[in-house]
Each structure stands twice: as C-alpha cells, then as structure tokens.
C-alpha cells in the first residue's frame, strides 16, 4: 500500500462517481418528470463530490493525475468503489433501494469525517453531508412509498432489497487502509457507523413494511478492485470518448 490516504480518497471518490454515473443513466427515462429532475440532482451532487475528492486524491498521490485522469484513464480493476454502487439500475425500486442503502451510510460517514483531522477532507465532508441529507430524505421517502404502495411495488421493492443486501456488509469493513488513515487523524468509528446505520435502515424498512434480509453470503472485493462484471461495461461506455482522444482537452 504505497499511499493509504490516496487509496482511501479514491474509495470515497469512486463510490460517488460510480453511483452518480448510474443515476445519470436514468436521465430522460424516469417514471415521472419530477424524478428525472430529482435523480439528475443526486447525480450532479454525487459526481460533484467525486470531482472534489478525486482531485484531492490525485494531489495526495502526487503523480500528476487529476480528477479526470483518475475517472477516465483507470481500468476497472483500479477502481475502488464498493460493489453496491456499481450494480445496474434495474427497475426504479432497485435504483431507489440502492440509493437509500448508500445514502444512509454516506450521511453517517460524512458526519464523522466532517470532524476528522484532515482539513481538506473535513471541508468536503461537511459540504457533502448537507447535500446527502437531502438524498437520504428523498430515497427513504421513495422506499416507504414503494414498500407501502401497491402489492406490485411492495414485491419489487422487497426483491430489490433481497438482491442488494449482500453488498451492504462491504460498506462497513475495515482493512489496513482504514487503519493507516486512522493513524493520520481520519478515524472512522466503523462499529458506531454500522450500528447507527442499522437503526436508520430498520426504521425506514419498518415504515415501508419491508422485511430486512438475513446476513448471508456477503459480497466484497470492490475496495481492492475485485468488482462485479458490471463495472467494466459501465466504464467502457463512460471512458469511450476520453480514451478515443488521448491527450485531448475538452
């Protein structure tokens, strides 16, 4: 692990870049016009956060890579996002459940990081926290609406939850990178994070009349570049123009 801080920042940045990109795939295809706007808003916020974080990651890394170099010129196995955020959009239930599970995590994480010992990161965290709170409100409202809507929407939402649940454990795993940045003042209390997340998620699932799935067969690997096959296809599209014109300015 050459540079744990750069690695840690890439994880933070890639989560948001990949999820923001997934949301942007909805643009023009949402079930109602208001959701075209709302999903675009969340995409803008997340890609905006990713831009700041990856710029910082590149600076910390010190090898001359800016945020665009990191976004458009890394292969899939160099991405460090959690598997949850790269899962395909599926139907609206999959997208909103994925969003809710991530938002709950992200809000709690930013809340801790906004007090961390790295000034630049703390500032990004404070700004992102404010915006992610809106996302969480939006996604949890939809989870409740869909879970406690019609029989069909309930079934779709429960299925989405069952499918995506195995990717949530990864969000709370710690490894040497986390320990190394903790020693640098970027200390996240993972246990507290997990327990607050559990409470928050349980509350929304209950209001949504959804059943929390059991913890079986968790999937992991995103933090070390072992992704699902979905990410590569997403990046093939995302990077196509940039890669077709190496060295060009846009």
């Amino acid at each position: 692990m050459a540079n744990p801080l750069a690695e840690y920042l890439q994880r933070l940045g890639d989560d948001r870049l990949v999820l923001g990109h997934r949301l942007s795939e909805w643009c023009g295809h949402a079930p109602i016009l208001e959701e075209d706007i709302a999903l675009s808003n969340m995409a803008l916020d997340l890609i905006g956060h990713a831009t700041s974080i990856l710029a910082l990651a590149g600076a910390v890394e010190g090898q001359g890579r800016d945020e665009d170099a990191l976004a458009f010129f890394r292969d899939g196995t160099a991405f460090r996002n959690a598997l949850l955020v790269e899962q395909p959009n599926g139907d609206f239930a999959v997208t909103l459940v994925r969003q809710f599970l991530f938002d709950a995590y992200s809000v709690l994480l930013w809340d801790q990081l906004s007090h961390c010992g790295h000034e630049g990161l703390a500032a990004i965290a404070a700004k992102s926290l404010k915006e992610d709170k809106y996302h969480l409100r939006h996604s949890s409202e939809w989870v409740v609406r869909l879970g406690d809507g019609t029989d069909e929407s309930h079934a779709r939402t429960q299925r989405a939850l069952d499918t995506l649940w195995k990717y949530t454990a990864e969000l709370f795993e710690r490894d040497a990178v986390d320990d190394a940045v903790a020693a640098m003042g970027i200390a996240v209390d993972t246990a507290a994070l997990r327990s607050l997340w559990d409470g928050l998620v349980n509350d929304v699932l209950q209001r949504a009349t959804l059943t929390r799935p059991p913890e079986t067969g968790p999937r992991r690997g995103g933090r070390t570049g072992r992704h699902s096959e979905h990410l590569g296809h997403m990046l093939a599209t995302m990077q196509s123009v940039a890669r077709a014109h190496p060295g060009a300015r846009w």
Partner: protein
Amino acid sequence: MPVPAEDPALLAAFEARIAAGESIEPKDWMPERYRKQLTRMMSQHAHSEIVGMLPEGNWITRAPSLRRKLSLIAKVQDEAGHGLYIYCGTETLGVDRHELVEQLLDGRAKYSSIFNYPTLAWADMGVIGWLVDGAAIVNQTVLAKASYGPYARAMVRICKEENFHKRQGYEICTVLANGTPAQKAMLQDSVNRFWWPALMMFGPSDTNSPNSAELLRWRVKRKTNDELRQRFVNLTVPQAIALGLTIPDPDLHFNEATGDWEFGEIDWSEFYEVVKGNGPCNQERMETRRAAHENGEWVRAAATAHAEKQRARRDTAAA
C-alpha cells in the same frame, strides 16, 4: 377549420387590449381560437423540452470530462424543468398535463423536429447548444413579449437559462475548434449535420405558414418565420467564421446592401418528411418516451396508493 363564433363586443375589446400591448392573463376573457393556438404552441414547446432531453441524454454517459459531464446533466435537467414549467403554464389555459402527455405518447402532438436527428458524436453537445439553443433563443426572445402573460413570463425565465446553455455549447465548440485534428473534424462534421435542421427549426417559409397571420395579429408571435431565420443566420455565421468552420451551404454569401447573410434553398421535402414521422429518429424518440412511461406505470400507481393510504390513516386518526 371552423372558427367558433365569439361575442363581437368581447372580441373587439380583446383585440384592442392586444393592440395596446396589454398582457392577457388566465382569468381574462379570450377567444377560443386564441386559447387553442396558445395551447398548441405551449404544449409543443413543452413536448420539445421533454423529447429534447433524449439526444443530449444520449451522451451523458460518455461525456469526456467530469466538468462536461456535470454541465451536460445540468443542461438536460434544465430541459426537464422547462418542460414542467410550461406544462404548468398550459394548465392556466385549462389543459391538464397528463392529457398533454397522452397526446405526445400516442403521436397526436408535435414537438420540434430537430430532436428527431441523432446525436452521433460528442461535438454534437457543443453544436446543439450553439445552433439549436441559439435558434430556440431567437424564437423565444420574441415569445417573451407574447401577449399571453404566463407564456411570456415562462419565456423570460427559460431564455435566461438557454442563453447560458448556448454559451456553454459555444464554449465546447471553441475548445474543439482549437483542439486536435480529430476534434476539429468532429466539430465540422457535427455542424454539417445540424446546420440545415437548425434553419428548419423556424418552421416553413412565411408563404407556407398557415397560422402565422392570426398569430401575429394576436401577438402570440411577433415576427415571421423567415424574419427570425434570417436573424439567426446573421447572428450565427460570424460565430462559425470565428471558429474557422465551414457552413455547409455553397450559396451562403453576405449581402452588403441589406447586411444579411443570404443562404441557399432549404430542402423542405426533408422538413416535411421529418414532420410526417419519417425523420432519422422519430420512432426511436417516441419508443423511448413510451417505454419510460410504461415502465414507470407501477411507480406512479404505488405513489398514488401510498398517498391514499396515508390520507386514510390521517382520517382515521382524526376521527
């Protein structure tokens, strides 16, 4: 088309208000024809914003830098916002949004033909901003002085955002024009594809525009199609020259006497084919919108069902 018989006194008063440059508001009396024409124009405009999300949306996932990706998403989002805003405007005329959406999806309503052309390269994101938003602004700046208050006010706001989009588009073009040979070629090819369709955005020539006379008298329109088209060409040609681009029109030349850039004959047969539904993407655009609508049916049903449950719970709690 049978014109409904209107009370001559009311009609005269209405036309006098228009002539005096007054603004017509939703609660004011207006001739049925005026209401119909406005509904037609405003709903076409709203539909155009919605369908217009698709050609640009097609490149969101491929935008070549994070900054461009953000501004493209924001632009398409603005278009959704404009659509929503104008649909609200049509509601002041007593027409429901859902009815209008149905008309779009079943093919009864029209939208701007420009969106039936495909986006085939990143440069199209620049050229659409520059030429297509540019043409829209020329149209809409005049509509912002239209006699119907809600429409005019919507246009003021929309024009402001579209001016921003146009500047952004032109900036994309500037970067490409100063970029690699491949980028320059991509830009020129895009201009070759969008130039004539952009000119067609102003509609048929005045001699073939059935609605124009009445629309002008009622100040729904303020300029003829040909006047607006010429204004657009005059604005745009110098910008193309500044970018080192060739306009794909061998007949284009500057008339020193009039100060106009005079252009060649528009291929109206292409225009009418696209209007008829035979443009390169008409079917794809409608299929995409219909698929979004149909795939969203269960979501809308869930939202309604949930709202009803909530209401019932509140009622029970209150009882």
